[in-house]
């Protein structure tokens, strides 16, 4: 049992990394990776939203959509429900855990409409995972996202000071770096037996 969860985690973090292998969530990956600090906040917010979102959308899928043969409504309901749940927890957090609220800040509402956040619950539903498995899959996906985002942000911070040829300055070198990271992550496919 535990082995199964561990496998899910490793596979989502390394082998099926949402950013570099599944090519989801590229917007925050390129957008908030200029500074390490913001990327850490973003990672924390993503971990939070993905775990919560996976679990709630599992419940919606299992108790509401599947019994009524409404599987085709997954995309619509998942977006709405995840956005609502995150909004709710945000209000709860602002009231009771202001420190946590300050740390996640603006990223929490921003991340709700992210494609990775929708993608993970959809993949969950396709793989017909259970509740705990879904949660692990979501959390693993978030860890994978955070892992590459933080790596990428620290690389980009160093690139600021590097002697980059004029034509490659700015976004161009960032794209190349992302592509090289993606190539490197392809190596992890070898883990999958």
């Amino acid at each position, binding site marked *: 049992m535990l082995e199964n969860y561990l496998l899910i985690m490793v596979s989502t973090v390394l082998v099926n990394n949402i950013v570099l292998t599944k090519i989801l969530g590229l917007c925050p990956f390129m957008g908030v990776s200029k500074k390490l600090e913001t990327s850490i906040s973003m990672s924390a917010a993503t971990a939070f939203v993905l775990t919560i979102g996976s679990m709630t959308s599992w419940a919606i899928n299992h108790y509401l959509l599947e019994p009524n043969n409404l599987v085709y409504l997954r995309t619509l*309901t998942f977006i709405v429900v995840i956005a609502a749940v995150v909004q709710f927890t945000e*209000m709860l957090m602002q009231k009771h855990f202001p420190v946590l609220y300050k740390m996640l800040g603006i990223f929490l509402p921003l991340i709700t409409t992210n494609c990775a956040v929708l993608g993970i619950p959809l993949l969950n539903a396709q793989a017909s995972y259970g509740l705990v498995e879904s949660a692990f899959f979501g959390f693993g996906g978030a860890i994978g996202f955070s892992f590459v985002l933080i790596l990428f942000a620290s690389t980009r911070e160093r690139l600021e000071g590097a002697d980059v040829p004029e034509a490659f300055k700015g976004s161009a070198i960032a794209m190349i770096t992302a592509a090289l990271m993606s190539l490197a992550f392809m190596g992890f496919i070898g883990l999958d037996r």
Partner: protein
Amino acid sequence: MLIAILVLILLALIIGLVLGFSSIKFKVKGDPIVEKIDAILPQTQCGQCSYPGCKPYAKAIASGEADINQCPPGGEDGVKALAELMGVEYKPLDESHGITKPKSVAFIDEDTCIGCTLCIQACPVDAILGAAKQMHTIIEKECTGCELCLPPCPVDCITMEVIEENAENWKWKYPVYSLSKKTAKVQ
């Protein structure tokens, strides 16, 4: 089909109810000190303090991020009021953020105006009235004298006019006391 619509309506209703209820139940009042600082600031929204408006500057002061002497429109009196509110020592206005000018309003020379709307976009308080290729004019009452409309004007038809003191707009000057001998010396 019908059941799909029903399920979605139900879902939307539940979510709406829960969010509406919790927004009342978990309401968080804004930081009162920010409101107090904001009340002292002149609300010109000119951005000379290097923040995008008076409220952000008030927030920055409250969090200790910004100093109290970055608001030229507020002048020395404003800095003094802020020093008193925050319980810190008075310090002279930081001139790198600009100098205090007499209170003035912008004036558009309507013969020169080409109706480009650039100044309308620049105005932080929507005090400029006009449309594309139509002459613009300034609502004097709304203008805060922030001068943000001067640089975008391609034909330089906007000038700042000092408001002369007359019987209509004269009021008692705010009483100003020096806080201590030490700060009086700085002045």
